[in-house]
């Protein structure tokens, strides 16, 4: 069963302030229960198949400066830094 504590832990982990953790319990519980059908899929012996590429496909190591002064298009501090809250 999904507990309130678990929802609290995950909300914290994902850095989302949740006002009422209880409302999520039922919903997550329903979804997780639904996911449990994966246990019946008989896939224990399956191997992982993934997309592959060769080294030739990769980007050549070349310095190409970005054409614009990107910082000016971001939230910035005096046009040079990005501001962040203090870290404790």
């Amino acid at each position, binding site marked *: 069963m999904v507990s309130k504590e678990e929802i609290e832990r995950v909300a914290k982990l994902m850095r989302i302030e949740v006002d009422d953790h209880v409302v999520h319990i039922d919903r997550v519980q329903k979804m997780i229960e639904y996911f449990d059908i994966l246990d019946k899929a008989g896939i224990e012996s399956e191997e992982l198949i*993934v997309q592959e590429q060769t*080294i030739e496909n990769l*980007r050549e190591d070349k310095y190409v400066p*970005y054409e614009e002064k990107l910082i000016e298009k971001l939230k910035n501090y005096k046009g040079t*830094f*990005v501001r962040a809250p203090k870290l404790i």
Partner: protein
Amino acid sequence: MVKIGLEIHCQLTKLESKLFCPCKADYRSFEPNTNICPVCIGLPGSLPRLNQKAIEKGTLISLALNCKIPEKISFFRKNYFYPDLPKNYQITQFDAYGHTSIGNNGKITIEGKEIRITRIQLEEDPGRLIYEGTSEKNKITLVDYNRAGTPLVEVVTEPDFENPKQVRVFMNILVDLLENLGVSEPSLEGAVRADGNVSIEGGNKVEIKNVGSFHDLEKAVHFEITRQQSLVERGIPIELETRQWDDRRKITVSARSKEEEQDYRYFLEGDIPWILLDPKYVDQFKQNMPESIASKRDRYIEQFKIPAQVADVLSSDKFYSDLFELAHNEKNAKEVANIITTDLMGFVDTKEKRQQSKLTSKHLSDLANAIINNTITRNSSKSALQEIVKTGKSLNEIITELDLGHVSDEFELSAVIEKVINEESIAVKEIKEKPETVNFLVGKVMKKTKGKADPSLTLELLKKKLKIY
């Protein structure tokens, strides 16, 4: 029993571009946030474009540390929130589905002790934080993302070190090796960073983070062992924790206890298909691999009969060994090695001095030949070398200008000897009883000729004059 393991982060500073975008890998000369693009700043919709050459460099390091190279490598996301991490996840490698990091199961022997290398992985460096403000209240954090995405190789060792000295020796060897491979310049600030973990018998493992320079690593490890031992003596249990290295006070301090256990939610990075490391490429990389330090050392001893100590020093430093290889022509190898290790290393002992030095391999070769041919004494060669480093003038010019030519003219030398015999009458009298006094007189002659006199000719002439045989 003390157990120490290391995690070393090394920037691949010899690459042109970042790991996943074409911004400059060496961010050091840029104004804040001018070496950024949508990819390394993590703009919505941007995608990583893996640097081909990073695979080669990672492979070289893995091979040099005797690691196994897998057939395919994959990338993972390590998820955590921090202001220097633009995507709030780091693209790194992880062995969740078999060995898919660039290297694994390696080893390296230091002073007869085998250190196992667990894993070598490619990953991106985060940006840099700058703290401003004086009090806790008005403190703000400023972020410079120029470094974000710089290619890093992380070397993870097994806890095989038994004492801080082994850690130091290992780090020195590793740093030399990285430089020799042409993948990094460890002397650049922040290019090599290391974390350690330390445990003593019966205690929990303690991680030490934030050791800014790898030179401090030995100190940090030493401090931590002493701290843990004193806890045990007092019967206090050692907690499983992470401690920060306080660079100013040179101690480790407990990192504020984490409210939650780190949960990085590692999973496969779908934006980068797995890369096939065709053995054909790995072989090619192997062939392009620079000669190892150990092999150089052995070759110097065997081929050129250079003494072991000299070969050690020469082979472990890429700057000097490159210079040596360019300067020598087999015959003068021993003399070139000698000049580098006895004199040159004293003149260009810092990075700045190396950069400013006007010395070329031709200078070095000429100088060695001049010594061998007796055109200059070993003594004067030192002054000549110093002048070359400073001015870059040719050896001949310098010999003339500074009047360093060898005095091997019998007539000229005889006049000086005559003078010395007259001045040092007491010593001359003693010579019958104490034949070694002749060396004192040779010294006097050398002094008068400012070291230019051929020492063997001087001795011969002196003996003739004083009729001692």
